[in-house]
C-alpha cells in the first residue's frame, strides 16, 4: 500500500472539486435462450451437475462446427431496437484468440468490427438532475467460456473444468467514456437491467451471474481533457492519467462501490504525485475494496479474423420489422405518458413501472379506472402508500398480493361517491391486499358504509354524551379538546362509518344545547 493511502485522505467531495471522474462501462449479459449460442445444448447451466450439458461443439472437439442460435440474434436485435441502436444488416462472427484452460477451442467466437448493434443510448439523471444520454458504442454477441474451479487437497493443487457454461450466449454492451459519477453508472446499469427484463431478453439475475459489470475508470484534472470522437484527449501538454479496469463485478451495487473506491484511490495517488499505471483490478466484496490483478500496458493481440465456419449473417428488413413489433412500451416511455396523461409525478411513476409485471398490473388498474385522472390519482396514492408498505413488509411485489385491480377501483369509486370514508377506504385496501374479496360484501360485513341515517347518528351522539359526563363537563368548562374524545366514542359506536365532519357538527350542536 502506498504512502498516499496511509496519509491524509482527501474527502471525496474535495476530490471531485479538483478531478473529473471518467467512466466507460462494459456489461455482459446472458440472454434468455433455451440453447447455447452455437450448439443445441441447454443454456441453463445454473446448478447443474458439471459437464452434463455438453456436446462436441461446446467442448471444442476436433472437427466440430458452430451453428448460430437465431433466437439469440433476435433477442440482441430487440435489445438494440429498445436502446435506439443501429442494427447492422450484415454481420459476422470473428475468432478471438487467447490461451486459457477454460477456453476449449483456443479462441472465443465473438464479433470484432461488425457488431449486431452500434450506437444508441440510455438516459440517466445527470449530476445537475437533468436528463443525460449515456452513449452506447456497441453491443455484440459472444460465447461464454467454461467454468474453472481451482482447488487444493492432499494430492496438491488442481483445476477442474465444467463445460456446462461453455458456449452460453453473452451480450457485451460497451458505452462511450461519458459516465461521470458512480450514480450515473449505477443508474445506467439498473436501467439496462430493467429494459432487458421488460423486453424478456434476459432475467439479468445478478445472483446467477447473468449480468456482470466492468467499469473502466480514470480521473483527470479538471480542464486538462476533452471528449472528442469517442476518445478522451488531453487539452494541455501534460499527459492524461492512465485508466484502471475493474473486471467481472457481479453486482450493480458493488460496481458503484468499486467506482467510489477507485476514485478515492486514484485521487490519493495523484495527489501524492505517484504514478498511476494502466491495470486490471478485481472487486473484493468482503473487504469492500478493489485489488490489483495485473498491469495492462500492452494491448493483448487477439488475432481476430472472421470465423470461416460461420457464413456472414444477413439481417433482413422484414426480420427487424417483426422484432420491432415485439418491443413493448418501455419504462421511460410509460413514465413520460403517465406524467402527461394523468399528471403523475416522475417519482411516483418510476415506482409504478419498476418492473414489467408491476407495470402491467398498474395498466390493468388504469384500464379499470377508464383512464379517469381523479380515480387514477387516488389509485397511485394507495399503490405507492399502503401498497408499497405492504410490499416491504411482505417482501413481495404488489402483483403477488390479493388485491385485484378492479377491486381497488371499486374502493376508490365508493370513496369518491362519499359512500365510504378515506379511513374506511384504507382499511379496505389493506384487507384486500392481504385477503382479497368482494368489495361491497366487505363494506357490508365491516360496516364501513358512511352513516347517512341522521337518526342513528343522533342516537350515538346522545349515548356518548350520556355515558361520558366528565368529558362533557370538561368541554363545558372550556376544555375544547374534550370534543375529540367524544368524537372518538361516536366513531367507535358507528364502526367507523360515520363521517367525522357530521359527527363534530352534531356533537357541538348537542353540547351547546346542554
Amino acid at each position, binding site marked *: 500500500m502506498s504512502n498516499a493511502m496511509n496519509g491524509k485522505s482527501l474527502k471525496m467531495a474535495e476530490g471531485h472539486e479538483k478531478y473529473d471522474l471518467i467512466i466507460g462501462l462494459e456489461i455482459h449479459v446472458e440472454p434468455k435462450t433455451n440453447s447455447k449460442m452455437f450448439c443445441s445444448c441447454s443454456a441453463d447451466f445454473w446448478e447443474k451437475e458439471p459437464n452434463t450439458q455438453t456436446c462436441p461443439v461446446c467442448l471444442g472437439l*476436433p472437427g466440430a*462446427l458452430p451453428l448460430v442460435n437465431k433466437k439469440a440474434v433476435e433477442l440482441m436485435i430487440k435489445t438494440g431496437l429498445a436502446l435506439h441502436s443501429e442494427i447492422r444488416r450484415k454481420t459476422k462472427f470473428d475468432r478471438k484468440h487467447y490461451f486459457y484452460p477454460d477456453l476449449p477451442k483456443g479462441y472465443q467466437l465473438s464479433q470484432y468490427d461488425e457488431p449486431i448493434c452500434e450506437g444508441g443510448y440510455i438516459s440517466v439523471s445527470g449530476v445537475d438532475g437533468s436528463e443525460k444520454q449515456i452513449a452506447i458504442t456497441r453491443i455484440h454477441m459472444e460465447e461464454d467460456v467454461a467454468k474453472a474451479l481451482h482447488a487444493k487437497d492432499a494430492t496438491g493443487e488442481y483445476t477442474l473444468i465444467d463445460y456446462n457454461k461453455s458456449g452460453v450466449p453473452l451480450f457485451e454492451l460497451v458505452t462511450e467514456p461519458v459516465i461521470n459519477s458512480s450514480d450515473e453508472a449505477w443508474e445506467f446499469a439498473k436501467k439496462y437491467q430493467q429494459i432487458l427484463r421488460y423486453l424478456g431478453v434476459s432475467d439479468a439475475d445478478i445472483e446467477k451471474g447473468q449480468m456482470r459489470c466492468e467499469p473502466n475508470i480514470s480521473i483527470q484534472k479538471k480542464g486538462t481533457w476533452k471528449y472528442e470522437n469517442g476518445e478522451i484527449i488531453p487539452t494541455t501538454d501534460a499527459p492524461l492519467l492512465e485508466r484502471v479496469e475493474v473486471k467481472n463485478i457481479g453486482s450493480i451495487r458493488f460496481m458503484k462501490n468499486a467506482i467510489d473506491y477507485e476514485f478515492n484511490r486514484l485521487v490519493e495517488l495523484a495527489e501524492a504525485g505517484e504514478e498511476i499505471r494502466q491495470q486490471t483490478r478485481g472487486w473484493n466484496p468482503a473487504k469492500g475494496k478493489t485489488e490489483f490483478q495485473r498491469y495492462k500496458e500492452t494491448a493483448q493481440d487477439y488475432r481476430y479474423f472472421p470465423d470461416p465456419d460461420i457464413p456472414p449473417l444477413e439481417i433482413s428488413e422484414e426480420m427487424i420489422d417483426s422484432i420491432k413489433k415485439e418491443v413493448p412500451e418501455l419504462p421511460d416511455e410509460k413514465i413520460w405518458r403517465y406524467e402527461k396523461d394523468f399528471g403523475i409525478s416522475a417519482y411516483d411513476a418510476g415506482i409504478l413501472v419498476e418492473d414489467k409485471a408491476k407495470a402491467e398490473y398498474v395498466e390493468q388498474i388504469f384500464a379499470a379506472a377508464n383512464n379517469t385522472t381523479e380515480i387514477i390519482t387516488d389509485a397511485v396514492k394507495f399503490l405507492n402508500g399502503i401498497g408499497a408498505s405492504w410490499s416491504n413488509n411482505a417482501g413481495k411485489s404488489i402483483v403477488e398480493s390479493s388485491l385485484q385491480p378492479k377491486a381497488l377501483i371499486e374502493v376508490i369509486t365508493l370513496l369518491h361517491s362519499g359512500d365510504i370514508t378515506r379511513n374506511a377506504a384504507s382499511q379496505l385496501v389493506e384487507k384486500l391486499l392481504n385477503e382479497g374479496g368482494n368489495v361491497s360484501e366487505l363494506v357490508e360485513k365491516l360496516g364501513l358504509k358512511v352513516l347517512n341515517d341522521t337518526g342513528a347518528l343522533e342516537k350515538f351522539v346522545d349515548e356518548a354524551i350520556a355515558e361520558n359526563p366528565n368529558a362533557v363537563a370538561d368541554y363545558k368548562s372550556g376544555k375544547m379538546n374534550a370534543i375529540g374524545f367524544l368524537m372518538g366514542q361516536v366513531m367507535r359506536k358507528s364502526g367507523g362509518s360515520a363521517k367525522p365532519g357530521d359527527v363534530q357538527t352534531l356533537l357541538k350542536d348537542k353540547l351547546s344545547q346542554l
Partner: protein
Amino acid sequence: MNLARKTIPELRTMLDSKEISVRELTNSILQQVQQKDGDLKSFLTIFSEKELSPAIDAAQKAIDEGKATDLTGIPCSVKDIFNMVGTRTTASAKILDNYIAPYESTVTSRLKNAGAIIVGKVNMDAWAHGSSTETSDYGPSHNPWDITRHPGGSSGGSASSVAGGQVPYSVGTETAGSIRGPAAATGITGFKGTYGRVSRYGVIAMGSSLDSPGPLTRTVEDAATIMKYISGHDAHDGTSIQESALNIDLSARKDLKGLKIGISNDYFSGAIQPGVSARVKEALEVMKSLGAEIREVEMLNPEYAVAVYTIVCRSEVSSNLARYTGTRYGTFKNDPVQTVYDVFMNNRSIFGFEAKRRSMTGSYVLSKGYYDKYYRKAQQVRTLIRQDYDKIFQDVDVFISPTLPNIAEVIGDALNNPLFGEMADLLICASAMAGIPGISVPVGLTENMPVGMQIIGPAKAEERIAQVAHVYQTATEFHKLVPANYE
C-alpha cells in the same frame, strides 16, 4: 483375384448375385490390406473382422432383404481425419494419438448408413499439412508404383490404399489438392466437389474455408456414386450448400461434341515437368477427337493463388490448431510433472515441425498491424481469383490442366522446401481458393510413374466435369493401369 481391384458396380453384382458374401468380401479385402501394408504403410488403424461384424451382418441383411444401396457391403478406407465414434482419430498427429472420437462425422455416418464397410483409417500428412504424407507423425505412406516415392498427399494413405489394391475406394479430404494431388500421383481418380458440397462436420479442420471431403477411386463412375452418398446439405455445417445430394447422370453425355475446353499456357510450362505436360496434351488430343474444342484462355498466373492460399490457409491453421493447448489432448506421460507448464510443454512439443511452422506463419499474418497487409489483402485477391474463373467460364465449359507439376518425388526430396506442399499444389490452389469443383483422372505414365489431368468446372458443376471425365475414361484405358508389384 484381388477383389480390391474391382469397381463398385462389379462388386455390387457379385454381392447381389450371392457370388460372394459381405463377410467373404471383407475378409478378402482385409487380407489385401494386411498383406500390402508392410510396404505401403497406408493404414493407421485396421479394424478386425470381429470389430466389423455388426456392419457386415447389417449389410448382408440389407442385401438379403433387397434393401442394398450402391455401397452396401463394399469395403473402403477413410482418411484418419474423420471422427468415427469409439475410434482413434489422429489426423496423423501424435498429440491426438490417444484421442478416441466420441462422435461421428457426417461423411462416415452417411457411408455407414449406406452400408459401406469401413475397414480402416488411413495415413495422411499430419493435420493435412503437406502433399506427400511425409509430415505424418507416423511416417510416410509409399507409392505402389515405386515404393521409394511418396503417394502424394495429404490424402496419401487413401491414394496408396486404392492404387496399391488394398481397398476398392477411399474417402479423403482436400484443402488445396489433397484429393486430386495424390490421385494423380498414384494413377487413380480423385473428385473434389464445390466447397460446401460435402459436409465438414466431424472432419478435423485444416483450412476451414477450403476443406472439402471427397472420394478417391478407380473410376469416375465410382467417384460419382460415392458423391451421391456423402454429398447433400448437412444441418451441422453452416457452410454446407443447401441442396440435396448430387445425383450425377453419367449416361447423359456420350461424347464431347460441343464441349469448349479452356487451357492456359502457364499451366503447361515453367515448373511443369515436360513428361507431365506431354501426357496431358495427349489426353487433350483424345478429347478433341471426341468432339471437344480447345481454347487458350487468359488466366491469372497460378503463383498468385499459391501466395493467397499460403496466407489464408496458414491463418486458419494457426487458429484451428489453437485448441491443442497441451491440456486436453496429449500423451500425459506418467512421470510426475512439476507444474502445469510442464504439461503444456510436454504435450505441445509433440507438434511436428510443419504444424509449428504453419502455426507461426498464420499467427504472424493475423497479428495486429499485419492483418490488413496480409490476410485482408489475400481475401481481396481471393475474390479476384473467383472473378477470374467467372470470366473464363463465360467462354469455356471446363478448364483443364495437369493436376501436379511433376510425378511423385522420392521420399525426403521435397522436405527441404519451406513451401513444399504449396508448390506441389501450384496448379490446384486457384480452383481450391475459388471453391469450385475439380476431378483428376489418370492420363498415362512418364518415367513409369502416373500422370494426372484435372478437369475444373464452375461452382456446382460437378455433374458436368464428371461427365467429361467419364467420357474420356470410357475412351481410354489409363485408369486400368495397375502397378506391377501390387496387383
